[in-house]
């Protein structure tokens, strides 16, 4: 059986490997929700492929808008795949640290006072 340290390292390595492969091999097609939006907007057939020039119309009037520091898991076109890898590595570690930190904090706070 793996000890905690090995388990964490193995888990993170697997996560980073998946994320790294994703940068190069992930499909550029829209996801299920975006595809549905394109179908509804008449830009795509239900079972057909997504046209190159299909562009999602997004309602912006009266809607909140926010620009993330690393939109679409990348650091802009000029950074290319390197930017993608940086973004994924950062995200994977941040997800790990945030969950670890909050879970640890809750555990501390949850300890009965003696």
């Amino acid at each position, binding site marked *: 059986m793996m000890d905690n340290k090995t388990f964490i390292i193995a888990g993170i390595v*697997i996560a980073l490997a998946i994320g790294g492969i994703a940068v190069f091999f*992930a499909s550029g097609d*829209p996801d*299920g929700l975006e595809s549905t939006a394109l179908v509804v907007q008449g830009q795509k057939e239900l*079972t057909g492929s997504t046209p190159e020039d299909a562009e999602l119309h997004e309602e912006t009037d*009266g809607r909140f808008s*926010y620009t993330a520091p690393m939109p679409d898991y990348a650091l802009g076109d000029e950074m290319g795949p390197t930017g993608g890898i940086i973004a994924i590595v950062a995200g*994977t570690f941040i997800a790990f640290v945030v969950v670890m930190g909050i879970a640890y904090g809750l555990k501390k706070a949850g300890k009965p006072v003696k």
Partner: protein
Amino acid sequence: MHIPDAFIPIWQGAIYWIIALVFIALALKWARNEMNEEKLPLVAVLAAGIFALQSFNLPVSMGTSGHLVGGALAAIILGSPFAAIFILTLVLIVQAVLFGDGGITTLGTNIINMGVIGGFVGFYTFRGLMGVSKNMPVSVFFAAWLACLIPALCCAVEMFVAGTFPLMEGLVAMGIYHAIIGVIEGFVTVAAVYLIATARPDLIDSGVVAPAGA
């Protein structure tokens, strides 16, 4: 199925946020009660893994791609739908704030769909099937498949309420795409459960190896 800000009016997003906060509070309570030195790394590693898996969009034909959500995985491994809510909430916050994947006003909706609905559907489908079939891979597969499909259908209804999609068209398209994406979700979840069960059988919920009630 990360809903962007543009797809839901702010006031509706606020309503979903309030509902989501109730479940987040319950999930925090779960974490406080269940977390121990042994489980902590598993939960954090699962979050890192789910984040990475979610960034991997696989082609699912029909000009569409899809990725794992992970709600069923977290709920089954940790033996509680609240585990899924806890992990998915934090992963979704990171995705929305840093990567613009899913909106901020719609974050509550996304937490409800993927964390709450995905977690509950995944967990109870698994428990039910495991009780009947006693077959772990089959139970995990269908639990994960449904935990992808049902939130997608809920999402279609929310899109209808928001005035973004017509009801039937949205349900049909979301249903078809996510029925296929769910197959990926099913296979990956079975593989992940096997991997973790092999590496650390002590960490996973006993319901995974022994059927509920046994």
